């Protein structure tokens, strides 16, 4: 009897241990290219510099594929139409790389996906590749869960050619100063913070074009606010850090130092931006939103002349205006007002990182990412999402789309004025929150612009110290 019981206990223990120790691929260091990988197409010749007389010809498709079938898990925060578009691209990629299957899985909002990935890393089973904001990717780097992409990018068989690297906008190659300035993620999409305006309401204020100075902006607000129930600007209830960043950039300032180690948003440009916000609220030109995207709905109803929004929101504006019965017909996008000579736009957005899994999967994931950044695939993606493409050459493939969407076309031209908020550090999310809170404090009259900024700087410094 005892023997029988002991055996049963042993068996149960073995089952339990086996269940706990499900095999997970051991993380590996970023490998060199697998020698077994057979190229499926004629690779570009990276060793040969492009001849000066010839225009560089970027590669359009991955150039190597694994010898054995590989399945990679691609976690995204792209839902509905965007999810469908990614799945379509994955099918196209499979045609070109029969040995690689990409499983595209929508994991909820960026915040939800971050929580799931964090849990997956802790459990030792991260996805193979995932989309996320660079500041969240920075936390994965800190956990040693991400593969640096420099070696893959330089690899003669599967990497980018010199022509590719010239074609790809620098803002789409993410270097992380806190982590050896290595490339830990690449972006196949970016958007920018722009001012959305109602031209009819501007006309009522005597302005024929969108305001280029903050004085003109306030002039419109003064005119519009004479009509009851018409605020000039509706600020999100949690603040608007990206809008604040745009206002600071447009005054020639910056948020953090280039090494992300010291705060700059409390300098003159930051203070002027906060004073501008204070003026909007003290003069009752602005209100706080009580619902997400309330400003978008009100804009579509012709109840607000300005919003500040990501260009990724453009399809939603078009839909909201249509749903509201096309009350607003004369509207457009413009860079934020400025005090400096040239316009400036805040370019930001999600990036894609590859997790430490197995060399085969990491390579397959890189090929998939490279495919997403290729001209034709990138163009298809842009047409669905209104994001900006990673490559200059994609513009050719987007000619018809740009013609049909002049608003997008205009914004595309401002990419050259792009600056990026300091999103390549884990400190950026808490700093965003600190800036947002400072804006809310000013909006509610709970702090002067100086006090609010001082408080935000203290929190930002704490976040910077914690990020080290």
């Amino acid at each position, binding site marked *: 009897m*005892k023997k029988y*019981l002991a055996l*049963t*206990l042993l068996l*149960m223990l073995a089952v*339990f241990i086996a269940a*706990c120790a499900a095999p997970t691929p051991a993380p590996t260091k970023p490998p060199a290219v697998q020698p077994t990988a057979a190229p499926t197409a004629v690779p570009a010749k990276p060793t040969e510099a492009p001849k000066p007389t010839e225009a560089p010809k970027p590669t359009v498709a991955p150039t190597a594929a694994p010898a054995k079938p590989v399945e990679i898990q691609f976690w995204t925060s792209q839902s509905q139409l965007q999810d469908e578009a990614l799945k379509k691209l994955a099918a196209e990629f499979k045609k070109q790389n029969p040995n690689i299957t990409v499983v595209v899985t929508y994991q909820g909002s960026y*915040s939800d996906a*971050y*929580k799931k990935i*964090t849990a997956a*890393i*802790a459990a*030792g089973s991260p996805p193979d590749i995932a989309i996320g904001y660079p500041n969240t990717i920075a*936390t*994965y780097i*800190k*956990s*040693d*869960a991400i593969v640096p992409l420099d070696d893959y990018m330089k690899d003669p068989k599967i990497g980018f050619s010199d022509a590719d690297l010239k074609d790809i906008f620098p803002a789409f190659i993410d270097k992380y100063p806190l982590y050896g300035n290595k490339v830990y993620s690449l972006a196949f999409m970016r958007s920018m913070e722009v001012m959305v305006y109602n031209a009819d309401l501007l006309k009522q204020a005597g302005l024929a074009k969108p305001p280029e100075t903050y004085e003109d902006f306030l002039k419109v607000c003064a005119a519009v606010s004479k009509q009851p129930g018409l605020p000039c600007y509706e600020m*999100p*209830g*949690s*603040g608007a850090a990206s809008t604040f960043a745009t206002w600071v950039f447009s005054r020639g300032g910056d948020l953090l130092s280039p090494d992300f180690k010291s705060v700059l948003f409390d300098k003159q440009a930051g203070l002027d931006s906060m004073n501008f916000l204070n003026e909007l609220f003290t003069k009752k030109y602005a209100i*706080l*939103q*009580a*619902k*997400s995207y*309330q400003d978008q709905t009100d804009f579509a109803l012709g109840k607000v002349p300005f919003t500040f929004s990501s260009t990724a929101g453009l399809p939603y504006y078009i839909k909201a205006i249509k749903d509201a019965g096309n009350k607003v017909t004369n509207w457009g996008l413009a860079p934020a007002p400025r005090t400096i000579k040239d316009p400036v736009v805040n370019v930001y957005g999600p990036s894609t990182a590859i997790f430490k899994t197995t060399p085969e999967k990491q390579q397959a994931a890189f090929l998939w990412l490279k495919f997403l950044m290729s001209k034709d695939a990138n163009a298809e993606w842009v047409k669905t999402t209104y994001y900006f493409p990673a490559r200059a050459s994609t513009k050719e493939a987007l000619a018809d789309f740009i013609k049909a969407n002049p608003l997008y076309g205009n914004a595309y031209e401002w990419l050259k004025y792009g600056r990026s908020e300091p999103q390549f550090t*884990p400190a950026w*999310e*808490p700093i965003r*929150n600190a800036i*947002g*809170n400072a804006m*809310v*404090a000013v909006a*509610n009259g*709970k702090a002067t612009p100086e006090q609010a900024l001082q408080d935000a700087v203290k929190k930002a410094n704490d*976040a910077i110290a*914690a990020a080290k």
Partner: protein
Amino acid sequence: MPQSATTARIAARMDVLPRAPTRRRIQWSGYLYILPAFVIIATFHFIPVFYAIYISLHKGAINKFVFTGFDHYLRALGGEEFWNALITTFMYAGLTMPFTIALGLFFAYLLYQPFVKARGLFRAIFFLPYVVSTVGSSIIWAWIFDPRSGLANWLLRAFGLQPLRWLIEPSGIGELLAKNMGWTIPTWASGPSLALVAISIFSIWQAMGYDIVIFLAGLTNIPSELYEAARIDGASGWTLFRHITVPLLAPTTFFVVVISVIGSLQSFNHIFTMNHAAAQSLGGPLGSTSTLTVYMFDQLYTHANYGYATAIAILLSLIILAFTLFNFRFLGRRVQY
């Protein structure tokens, strides 16, 4: 069986003869029966608790930890944010618990009266908010509190009152009242923010049904003879309630208090959802609804401070444990079963 052996056994049983030391037989099969439950509880309860304690003593990101001892605990106890969150937690508990229990008892007593028909239907109606998805009902309540189109402000306007900003209002209710009266009060007297009050109203609405059902069960256990005897002695109304219902309901009230204290200190879902639905940051307007659980979540997911967030979780557990022990030690004593 030999006679002597039987006699010896009887004598031993009667403690006449010294008992020979015997080895207790261990019934291993008993352990086998509890093994599945033990494995489940250990895997999903004890191991995570010990792992949480381990993380709270370390610094690092997700899976790379460096031992830091009690640094996180000292940082929490020495920092303003933790204490602010603790005060908000107590304010929330103070706003919700007494009202939930008092209203729960009131409605339970009302439903217990013989003149109330369709008691089961009413009980179901009151219990419904408790079983409805918290996320769904909190979003609906966030719409009710919408400053522009919500039902709450519609009602205020209907009574000729000024509309309020509810979930987006960081000002304390004391401050708002004083402002209406034209007074100025010190910051410490401003009280909980209107946003926290709005969340508390939802919480009372949601939790009251549970208390009603528990109190109703307690009320039905009070023997009716006691009421009849008291009536014969001339007692009625409030006297019956005060001298029979309240003392005999004490075990039920004690249970409700213990559960409510734990529940209110652990509240998270509806606070998170209502803030989100009102386009607020995680801790509500200017952090005025940032209870300890929200603060912990913020530290974990926004700041990626895993060790610190876990230390807050452990501290919260200790606070809950202290309150529970206090309740058992001081309130439990007064309860007569």
